[in-house]
C-alpha cells in the first residue's frame, strides 16, 4: 500500500495532497492540466522531494522531510513511465529494457531471459533489436512499460500513458493496458485528464484541483456523490450546492442560483444535490404537469453522447445551469438547435440529496 501525505511548494505552485492507494489495484489521479498531477508522480518517484509530509510504500518510508528522510529515486522500488516515454535514443529496445537490471547489477545470466519475457508480455517480442526512433507511438509506449515492469516494482507510476498516441492506437492499447494492469500485484498510480480513462482504469479515483485533492473514492462514489463542480462535470452529471432552511414544510433547497423543489431535503444545513441528465425533460413550450422544477433558458451547446451515440447532451443556459441528455428522436421532434429558448423540467423526486 502507498500512503502519501505531502506538501510541496515550487515557484508559485503549491501542492497539498493526501491519499492511500492499495496494492493490486489502480488509483487514477485525475485533474486538469496544471492541477499538480505530474508533480505528485515526481514526488512519489523521488525525482522531487516534498517540503513536508510522508511517503510510505509497504511500510518503507521513502520521504519524511521532518525526519530528514529523502530516499533518492534509484533506491526506490518504483517503475515510472513518463508521458513522452523517454526511451534512451542511443540504446536498442532490448538494451532499454535491460537498463534497470544492469543498473541494479542483476546477474548477467538472468538479464536476457527477463528482458525477453518482459518484451513478450508487452507484445513487442520481435522489436528488441530496434532503436526507439524506429518504433511507432504505440510500440514506444509498450517498450517504456516493459522497461519499467521488468524490475517488478512495488509501485508503478503512469503519467498520461495514452496521451501521446493517436486515437486509433489509443483505443487498441487501452484495452490491453487495462488487462495488463489488472494482472499486476503492485500499487499503480495512473495520471490522466480524461474522464473516460479515469472511469475505465480507476479502481479508486483521486480528483485533484489546483494543487488540492477535492475528492477521493470509487467510481460509483464519484458518479453518485460528486462534491465539486469539476467532479460533476467529469462524471457528466448536474451538481448543486445548497442549504435547507429551518421551515422544512417548504421542501425547497436554496442554491446560489435559485430554489429547487426537493421531495425530502432532510434536516436544515448545507447539502449537495444531483440530478441525472437523463431525468431532465426538455419542452419547446412551458410544460403543464406534475414536475415541480421548471426552468427556461437558451440551449448553449449540443453534443452527441457518446461521440458516436444515440443520445445528445444538451447544455442549457438556465439558472441554475443544467445539462440534459435526450434521444436523437427528441432533438429532431422538438427541432432543438443551439440558441433556441426551451423549458427544462424534472421532478422533485428526481433529485438526490446528500451531505
Amino acid at each position, binding site marked *: 500500500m502507498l500512503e502519501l501525505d505531502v506538501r510541496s511548494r515550487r515557484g508559485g505552485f503549491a501542492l497539498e495532497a493526501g491519499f492511500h492507494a492499495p496494492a493490486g489495484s489502480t488509483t487514477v489521479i485525475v485533474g486538469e492540466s496544471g492541477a499538480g498531477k505530474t508533480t505528485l508522480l*515526481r514526488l512519489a*518517484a*523521488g*525525482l522531487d522531494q516534498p517540503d513536508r509530509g510522508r511517503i510510505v510504500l509497504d511500510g518503507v518510508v521513502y520521504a519524511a522531510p521532518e525526519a530528514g528522510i529523502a530516499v*533518492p*529515486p*534509484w*533506491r*526506490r522500488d*518504483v*517503475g*515510472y513511465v*513518463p508521458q*513522452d516515454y*523517454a*526511451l*534512451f*535514443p*542511443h540504446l*536498442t529496445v532490448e538494451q532499454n529494457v535491460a*537498463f*534497470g537490471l*544492469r*543498473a*541494479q547489477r542483476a546477474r548477467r545470466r538472468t538479464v536476457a531471459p527477463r528482458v525477453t519475457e518482459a518484451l513478450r508480455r508487452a507484445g513487442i517480442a520481435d522489436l528488441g*533489436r*530496434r*532503436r526507439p526512433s*524506429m518504433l511507432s507511438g504505440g510500440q514506444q509506449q509498450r517498450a517504456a512499460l516493459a*522497461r*519499467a515492469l521488468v*524490475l517488478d516494482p512495488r509501485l508503478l507510476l503512469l503519467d498520461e500513458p495514452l496521451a501521446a498516441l493517436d486515437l486509433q492506437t489509443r483505443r487498441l492499447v487501452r484495452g490491453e493496458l487495462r488487462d495488463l494492469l489488472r494482472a499486476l500485484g503492485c500499487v499503480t498510480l495512473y495520471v490522466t485528464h480524461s474522464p473516460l480513462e479515469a472511469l475505465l482504469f480507476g479502481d479508486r479515483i483521486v480528483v485533484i484541483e489546483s494543487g488540492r485533492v477535492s475528492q477521493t473514492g470509487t467510481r460509483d462514489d464519484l458518479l453518485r456523490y460528486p462534491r465539486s463542480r469539476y467532479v460533476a462535470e467529469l462524471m457528466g452529471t448536474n451538481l448543486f450546492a445548497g442549504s435547507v432552511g429551518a421551515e422544512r414544510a417548504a421542501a425547497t433547497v436554496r442554491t446560489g442560483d435559485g430554489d429547487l423543489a426537493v421531495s425530502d431535503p432532510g434536516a436544515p444545513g448545507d447539502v449537495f444535490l444531483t440530478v441525472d441528465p437523463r431525468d431532465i425533460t426538455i419542452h419547446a413550450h412551458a410544460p403543464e404537469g406534475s414536475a415541480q422544477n421548471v426552468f427556461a433558458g437558451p440551449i448553449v451547446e449540443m453534443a452527441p453522447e457518446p461521440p458516436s451515440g444515440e443520445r445528445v447532451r444538451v447544455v442549457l443556459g438556465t439558472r441554475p445551469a443544467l445539462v440534459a441528455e435526450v434521444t436523437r428522436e427528441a432533438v429532431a421532434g422538438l427541432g432543438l438547435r443551439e440558441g433556441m429558448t426551451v423549458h427544462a423540467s424534472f421532478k422533485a423526486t428526481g433529485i438526490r440529496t446528500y451531505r
Partner: protein
Amino acid sequence: MGGGLRLLLVLAAAGLFLLLGLPLAAVVSRVPPSELLARLGDPMLLEALRLSLLTSAAATALVVALGLPVAYLLATRSFPGKRLVEVLIDLPMVLPPTVAGFALLLAFGRHGLAGRTLALLGVSVPFTTLAVVLAQAFIAAPFFITATRAGLSGIEPRYLDAAATLRASPGHALRRVMLPLALPSMLAGAGMTWARALGEFGATITFAGNLPGVTQTMPLAVYLALQHDVDAAVAMSVLLLALSVGVLLSIRLAPSWLGALDRARAGRP
C-alpha cells in the same frame, strides 16, 4: 532579394574567400607535388612530425582526463564562483600564446611558484617534451571543455529522470546515459583540441624552447626552416594543412558516419 543586398553578400563572400583561401593556395602551389613527396622523407621533418603527433596526442589525453570532470561539474552543478571558473577556462582562447608560455615559465620555471618545489625533487619542466605537452594543453583545453560542457548540458532532463527511476545511481547514469549521449560533442571537442595543440607555436617556443627532437614540433620547425630552406618549410606547411583539414572534415562528417554505423548495427539500411 534586392540587387544591392545580393551584391554586398557576393562581395563579402569573395573578400573572405580571398583572405582565407589565397594564402593556402599560395602554400600548396609553391612547390610541385613530386618535390613535396621527396621532401616528406626529410629527417628534420620526420623528427618534428613524430614529436608533434606524440605531444599533441598526450596534450589531448591530458585535457580529456582533467577537462571531463570539470565539464561535468559545470554542466550539472551550480556553485559560487562558477562564472569566474568559466572565464578562467575560456581565457587561453584569447590570451596571446607568448603570454601563456611566459606564465607557464613563471609557474614551472626553475625559480617559479611550483618550479622551486619540483627542483627540490630533481624535476625540471622547462625546455623538455613535457613542457611542450603542458603548453599545448594550456592553450587547447578550452575547446574540449566548452564542447563537452555544452554536450552534457544539452541532454534532456527526461532521460536522466528515466535513468534515476531505473535504479541508476548518478555514476551509472553518467557512464550509461550522459557520456554516450554527449559523445559526438566530446569527439568534436577533442578533435578541435588536438588540432589546436598540433598547431601550437607561441607558448611552446616561450616555455619549451626550440630543441630538435625534444621540443621542436612542426610549427617550430616550419619557422626555423623559413630562415634557410623555404621549400622544406612549404612541405611541412602543406602537411600541417592537410592534417588540419583532415581533422575538421572528420568532425563535420563524424555525426553522419556514426549515424550510418548505428543504423547498420540496428539492422536497417
